């Protein structure tokens, strides 16, 4: 497995036809992680109703796994409560994608972080409100 550099079929499906691409105007929560200098930048927008992620959108600059993990995390989070969504880990995303090449596990598997950032953004706003 250490030699694997190719992607699973699942990754390629999400890369070629990513789900939930786009932006939400005036989102309830917004998370952004990564840096174009490093080659990966993701942003996630969420709409929350009664503690549930009702809608979620993403935009990503990055490699195949950056795009596929973004797409997958939006699928996993949609319809979940905030508490459930906060439990989604990087490993969950990789597992759902039938694995990622080892060297992609750290650098291009930031989608769960972006989701958590969007949820925390929502929770901060709620506290202030």
């Amino acid at each position, binding site marked *: 497995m250490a030699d694997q550099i190719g*992607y699973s079929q699942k990754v*390629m499906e999400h*890369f*070629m036809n*990513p789900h939930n*691409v786009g932006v939400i105007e005036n989102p309830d929560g917004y998370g*952004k992680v990564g840096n*174009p*200098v*490093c*080659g*990966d*930048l*993701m*942003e996630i927008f969420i709409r929350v109703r009664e503690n549930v992620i009702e809608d979620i959108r993403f*935009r*990503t*600059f*990055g*490699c*195949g796994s*950056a*795009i596929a993990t973004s797409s997958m995390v939006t699928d996993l989070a949609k319809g979940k409560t905030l508490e459930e969504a906060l439990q989604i880990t990087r490993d969950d995303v990789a597992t759902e994608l039938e694995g990622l090449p080892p*060297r*992609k596990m750290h*650098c*291009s598997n930031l989608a769960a972080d972006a989701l958590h950032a969007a949820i925390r953004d929502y929770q901060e706003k709620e506290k202030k409100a």
Partner: protein
Amino acid sequence: MEERIYLDHAAAMPVHPGVIRFGRQFLEEFAGNPSTIYQEGLQAQAAVAGAREKVAALVGAKDPPSIIFTSGATESNNIAIRGTALRNAGKEKRVVVSAIEHISVLNPAKDLQKGGFTLTQVPVDHYGVLDLDALGAAVTPRTVVTSVHYANNEIGTIEPIREVAEIVHDRGGYLHVDATDAAGRIPIDVERDGIDLLTLSSNQLGGPTGTGALYIRPGVRVQPVLVGGGQERGLRPGTENVVGIACMGEAARLAGKEMPEEMRRLSAIRDRLITGITGIEDTYLTGHPRERLPHHASFRFPRIEGESIQLAMNMLGIAVATGSACTSMTLEASHVLLAIGLAHDEAHGSMVATLGRGNTLDQVPRVVNAARETVKRLRAITPL
């Protein structure tokens, strides 16, 4: 399923059909160990000598024994840099390389630096052309070896080797030229160009992988990197890869013979490709617009990332290269794209197409359309 279009000849070349025929026959007729003096050994010796003549002829080397065979360009570069530097260094030890050399030149040079050599990396302009004034300042009478490639594999730019040679020889040092990507593509003449050591790869000439060669000008003293028996003048010990060497020789002969026609044919495809792809919005050629290899077209697409481009093109049936950090073993941005002045984020979105025998003008519209579709799709996802 549409026919695949292969545009990454700089990474690996299909073996020339003429070399396959030659190699098959060669494998069927047993050749012995070239270090023996009975008939089978003498046949192998003759095959290696014949290959040496063919490779020498391709690069204008007058004396065939000035060619030694290696396991590939990486080994040739290592022998050229380390072997020449270590053998000829005086008290003040200096090595000079261009900033956009291949990693198999840069790393031996950096290794020498750890061993007490002073290493200077000479900058290039935004086309990737070596800064000759900076070279003139960097090369001193203490510089043992200067290494500048004939042409760059990521951006296709051809370097002004004759001017480089004048500067290097004026200071009294040796010039090593990595011609991996240029040999067999454009005319090279070690005499005319003033080259002291020249690296060649079998595969990049249309031969099988696993063989390379190093030209060493008669009189240049080089010490071995690998030690063992006395094969290849002691510089590449170990029983010769006779079939690989024989095939490399045949590949060199065919590459030389077909070069004028292939230069004309491939540069026409290249130019069509460049016109088509730079017609895509916010897309730029990398490397020199004219002084570039005839089979080489390279681009950058701001706001999208190279590995994504490569994957998407692959799904559309087209194999291309990228200098993206995400596809490199080290996950670092391309040192070549940084050296031509691109910012880190700009260096991520590159695509390189290198042409070969199998490519035709008819393929260009499909490649351009695939690139346009890919760029449009990825830009629709990008937050930048």
